[in-house]
């Protein structure tokens, strides 16, 4: 496990290939040779893709960008685990020192009812943006704000808001859930804003609108298995789901007329 170890790995990769959302998909076998244990998982795929290109074959499409675990672009179900075996780690931050020579690695996209495959390992997660559009914001137009220190915020609340706000919107929670529920993602946004004084005026509206949109997108319901939190690279706690449920129920109780509007069809 030491840095600079001269260990090299030879691996067998079984990679999901699919030409488009409506095309059939299948696993293809590839070999990854002489993989340094200091490489990241995506660097290993870079090496594989460059080999494929040199052989005149079509490289495997996968999403990635920051490669620092913060943008939420990378995905991949690795040997059955969203973002691979290491807890609290995105695929781009997973390093090959966590694998052994000769390992067989299955690589699949984050599939779920509401995430369709775009191509190979790339999926469409735009449902998340639509949920945010429904209510994941504070309605403050530019230019309206008072002095930033005019309203002190209890440090405990602000730290708790931060813990929820670290969600990177990757969708691992959905991929990990047997019901493909987006509750951890939606709960994280609701909790972030609900824990701050600035988020109070729209708190009820937000919970109702975001939950309604989550249902409309076809995400499943939460049955409290906590698989989402275990797969979350930012280790967001299921507390946020409890908060979402509480806020939603309070809002419904206060405004029963909304219930009909927001129940899933």
């Amino acid at each position: 496990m030491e840095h600079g170890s001269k260990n090299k790995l030879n691996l067998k990769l079984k990679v999901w290939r699919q030409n488009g959302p409506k095309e059939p998909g299948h696993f293809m076998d590839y070999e990854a040779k002489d993989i340094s244990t200091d490489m990241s998982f995506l660097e290993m795929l870079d090496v594989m893709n460059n080999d494929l290109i040199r052989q005149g074959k079509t490289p495997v499409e996968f999403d990635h960008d920051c490669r620092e675990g913060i943008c939420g672009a990378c995905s991949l179900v690795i040997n059955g685990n969203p973002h691979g075996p290491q807890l609290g780690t995105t695929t781009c931050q997973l390093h090959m020192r966590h694998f052994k020579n000769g390992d067989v690695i299955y690589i699949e996209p984050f599939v779920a009812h509401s995430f369709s495959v775009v191509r190979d390992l790339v999926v469409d997660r735009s449902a998340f943006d639509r949920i945010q559009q429904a209510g994941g914001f504070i309605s403050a137009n530019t230019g309206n704000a008072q002095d930033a220190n005019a309203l002190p915020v209890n440090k405990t609340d602000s730290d708790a808001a931060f813990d929820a706000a670290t969600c990177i919107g990757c969708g691992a929670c959905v991929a990990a859930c047997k019901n493909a529920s987006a509750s951890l993602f939606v709960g994280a946004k609701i909790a972030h804003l609900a824990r701050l004084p600035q988020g109070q005026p729209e708190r009820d509206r937000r919970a109702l609108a975001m939950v309604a949109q989550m249902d409309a997108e076809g995400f499943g319901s939460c049955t409290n298995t906590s698989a989402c939190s275990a797969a979350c690279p930012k280790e967001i706690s299921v507390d946020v789901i409890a908060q979402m449920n509480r806020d939603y129920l309070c809002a419904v109780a206060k405004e029963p007329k909304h219930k009909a509007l927001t129940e899933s069809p």
Partner: protein
Amino acid sequence: MATKLDAKVPGGPIEEKWDNHRFDMKLVNPANKRKFDIIVVGTGLAGASAAASLAELGYNVKSFCIHDSPRRAHSIAAQGGINAAKNYPNDGDSIYRLFYDTVKGGDFRSREANVYRLAQISNHIIDHCVALGVPFAREYGGLLSNRSFGGAQVSRTFYARGQTGQQLLLGAYSSLMRQVGLGKVRLYPRREMLDLVVVDGKARGITCRNLITGEIESHEGHAVVLATGGYGNIFFLSTNAKNSNVTASWRCHKKGALFANPCFTQIHPTCIPVSGDYQSKLTLMSESLRNDGRVWVPKQKGDKRSPQDIPNEDRDYYLERIYPSFGNLVPRDVASRQAKFRVDEGRGVGDTGVAVYLDFRDAIKRLGEEGIAEKYGNLFQMYEKITGENPYKVPMRIYPAVHYTMGGLWVDYNLMSTIPGLHVLGEANFSDHGANRLGASALMQGLADGYFVIPYTLGSYLASSKLEKVTTDHSAFKESRADVTARIDKLLHMKGSRTVDEFHRHLGKIMWDKVGMSRNAKGLKEAISEIQKLREEYWQDVHVSGEPTYKNEDLEKAGRVADFLELGELLALDALTREESCGGHFREEYQTPENEAKRDDEHFCFVSAWEHVSGAKSSWQLEKEPLEFEHVHLATRSYK
């Protein structure tokens, strides 16, 4: 100095310029705003804040990005913080001091009026972000907390643990999403702008590729706002996100927009060093770590003891030794160069010898591991994930890496480029940082441009221009689509022997070796001819796989590398013609006996803005924008 460039800096005392200008600018009345369509390319801090603010005013905004969601823009990765002149710590800060530090930090190569406006606006940014729910760090009293960054002797940096960019971007993204929900913004994700469409001399639209279907699309608007980020990835290895690129800016440059100060690139002193040739990017360890970490190398060359076994008397805390008043918090260019000098002397550490230590031992003694985790927890975790070493126990190994580009498309005080209607914001423009950007100032600038400058200046452009109706059937759109399609076909048909990545790495090596942390005339001339040769080879021998009709990352990269191969030459040319050292641009020929940068204000106190000339022997012509310093007097920077 005669010049075509008019910076349009308003008259009057510096403190009043922006206020006066806001009063003098023409307004679009509220009912008319909805008649204007504005194209905003990019959804990083600059683009998202601009799109949201323009939509709030009533304009119809079309927002484009290459990512699947606007929230993934490179800004998300910014770690350390954002500056503002609030003076909450009561330690002597003021708008004037932030202005002064930024001009000085930029080594006197920025425009005073722009920087002053930036400092003025900085406070409003913090207010607005807090209103949007950005969870900045707070003290137990509930008020906002601050820390220090390089090049400043006050604590003016606001932060959200090591994830400030993420929290600020999610704030701007939430405003953008709200406007999408309200129907004022139409979102076009996974679109890559590949050309600017100019009609009657004005920017009226863009041509882009739908990255999912491969379709070449045209979009028209009354103005184009470009916020597509910096070009640091020209070096292949940088701290930028993998998809960051220069294509949108470069396409505008080739349509007539002048490119300013391309050689002003920033090398960040504290990054995780390269570990092998497979390396795909470099990871930054935030500058904020220099608040508590101490940088050192062994006094003796080739001291192979493990760092814990090297006693204090055998350690050289070289930044504290050379710069006693700023110590570990000297500006980035200075810290980077000093690290390079130590490695060149043979005192580098780690397996490769190309690194120095950043040590938290003393801070941990003072604050405990918990205290350190509270401030930098996620950075320490990231370091451990990448290197497999625990930085609470052994010092981090760090080395400089390309991080930020101060250069970019030339803009006037209104953030408009030399093409009327094309406005450029954020890292994509050249405006406020001169030859070196201070830490925590890019987030400030991106949000200042997007939230508080463009909503005013764009309105004035629209109100004072005659803009005929154009549709995407106009010949300019058709020609642009044809050009873009032809270029894609050409790239796909070469089927040569080398991959796009191989060319990109090769270009990156030339850039790092000869146009990197220190430069000289001989190396720069060699770089120019090597890049020209590599570019020729590229257009004969690159192998781009697959088809244009589906998601094809290899094709996306191929277009970007083709543009980097052109920019590389201009970057080296700019470095060659700037015969002085300033900020991030260090010419070995121009240094003091103590190896500090030696500026030449008599001959080089100007912005170099390059015009692309096609068909000529040399592809670029230089225009100069003279710089005048009325407030911060030209002086040698000293951090001793």
